[in-house]
């Protein structure tokens, strides 16, 4: 008699089990939790890999790497910011539809910009960007707020206290506003065949020029922070 049957079942490939040995009574592959904190993000794009030096590669080889998610790919067309926008546009998990809408919006941006390009003078032509991705990145950059307000209760009164934002939070707000403003539309009786993709395209082009509804939102928030700057010290203390 030996213990071979007590060992791990053979259908679990040894590669597949690495790092998940802490739950002997549950089947190894039924792990639907998150990865342990020791796991690091994958270097999934060849461009990113080429930037690593030999020491960084050595360090990463000693660590557990997470498998890439659905929104990570090594494609030449891959853009992490665009994937994020897809997730903000997506409703109830229909990612393919969201991708389709954004593709349409980008096509409309391209058409509009090329029309502008051909109508412009030779000297003005150079200043008109025709790459939709470039416009999107510029728009995102312009929409990021620097400050926001948080409610703080002092002596029974709730004050709006201005707080500085970090980059991740500011980017999140920019995505949210871009999609929110594009979803605001005229009442149905005035509907004239303007789709979400049209409004998103317009909003992105406007934001890249520092105009439009989203930029207005950002400026208004900054104004609110300016008005409430007297309460800034409420951030600290009790």
């Amino acid at each position, binding site marked *: 008699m030996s213990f071979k049957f*007590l060992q791990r079942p053979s259908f679990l*490939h040894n590669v597949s089990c690495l790092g*998940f040995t802490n739950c002997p009574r549950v089947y190894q592959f039924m792990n*639907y939790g998150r990865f342990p904190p020791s796991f690091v993000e994958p*270097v999934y794009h060849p461009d990113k890999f080429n930037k690593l030096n030999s020491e960084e590669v*050595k360090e990463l080889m000693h660590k557990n790497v997470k498998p*890439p998610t*659905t929104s990570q790919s090594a494609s030449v067309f891959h853009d992490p910011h665009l994937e994020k926008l897809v997730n903000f546009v997506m409703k109830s998990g229909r990612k393919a539809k969201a991708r389709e809408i954004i593709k349409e919006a980008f096509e409309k941006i391209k058409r509009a910009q090329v029309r502008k390009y051909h109508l412009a003078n030779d000297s003005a032509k150079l200043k008109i960007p025709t790459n939709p991705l470039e416009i999107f990145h510029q728009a995102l950059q312009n929409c990021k707020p620097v400050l926001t307000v948080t409610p703080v209760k002092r002596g029974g009164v709730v004050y709006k206290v201005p707080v500085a934002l970090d980059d991740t939070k500011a980017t999140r707000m920019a995505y949210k506003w871009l999609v929110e403003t594009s979803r605001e539309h005229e009442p149905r009786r005035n509907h004239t065949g303007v789709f979400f993709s049209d409004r998103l395209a317009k909003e992105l082009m406007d934001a890249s020029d520092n105009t439009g509804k989203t930029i207005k939102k950002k400026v208004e928030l900054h104004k609110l922070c300016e008005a409430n700057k007297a309460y800034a010290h409420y951030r600290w203390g009790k």
Partner: protein
Amino acid sequence: MENCMLRDDKFMDHGFMKREPKNTLAREHFENGKMNSISLLLRSNLRFSSIHNKSVVAYSSQAAKENVTIKKKKPISRAMRAYIDRVKQFEENLIVESKEYSDGKRFLANIMGEDPAHFTPKDVDKSVEYLLPSGLFQKLARPEMAPPEETIEKAKFDINGRPFHFLFYTGASHLYETQFETVKRINRAEKLLEQIHRKGHTPEKENKMDLVTSEWQDISEMEKTINESIRDDHFEQTMQALERLAQHPMSGHFKDFLMNYRKATTVNMTEMVFPEIQQDPDGRYSVQHTTKRKTAVATVTIRSPGEGKFVINGQPGLLYFSDVGAREHVLFPYQVTGLMEKVDTEVTVEGGGFNGQSGAIRYATSLCLAALVDEQGRVKLQLAGLLRRDPRVKERKKFGKAGARRGYTWLKR
């Protein structure tokens, strides 16, 4: 138990069969002749949490002998005498227990059909788990057989009642000793650095310890290392001091000390087994592998050299998937290794949705390509996370919840 018993005369001769068992239940069985050798052996040697009382403090036998000579000259306190008696009794008990353990281990090895000479404590644990399966949740409540030496605590006091350790009254002597030693070494490292700076040099890179190939022990491992239970905040304090020493430019001089509290890490890929490469009758090399993701199962066959042909379930190219994300998934490993048009691929996939299927294909393809490419290609695949199975699946719905985690809308009146 009765069925797996081993009626071997050579084991019936042993002393433990002649001695009466302590346990009353066992004695009953013993007298009735029902108890077979194995169950008796296991019972007497099993360590349920309270058999060896940890509060009994062992005392070295040499010190006990010295006591006899001192006793005549100088009377010792009654408490101290009781302490020494307890120690003596414990040591005698220990000899008996050790013999029982070694006999029991040999006996278990014979039952399990293993070589008794190479029967490790790990094997003992396995066989106890197999012979006496327990459904109890608490690990302390499950049957266990361990060498009696594991439960000894070393002597803490000398004959005059003084503690051996200079930090005994801190309550965490070994931990504070570690901190003490660490700070001593940090000061020494500072002095070494100062010497180099005085000469007008800067310290070389080799003076710093290589921290990539090892990582810090966690709190439970540290507890085993210093043989003492550690409080969380104490652990943090100690780690701060150790980290400071490790990050010091002269830390290489104290490598041996630091490695007591670190564990070596290996390159993950060295443990991996890649699918075998076979040669087809037409002279081409082929690799085949089957993997899973969610509920999808994919079998991928890659032939090299090829022209970039790609077939999924008999359908040409990527037309099998309508989703763009799924297509990107399937192409992922080829883009990382740069073998897009140099190999032919044939895939059969079933079960799951498009994400599961493409994920399964991605994993199988990555493993097959890893078998074909050189070391650099494997490193690329490894860092892209493609050589690891994605174990995440949909989390089940829980009762009392709207989904896996989301609660129902609820308002207090």
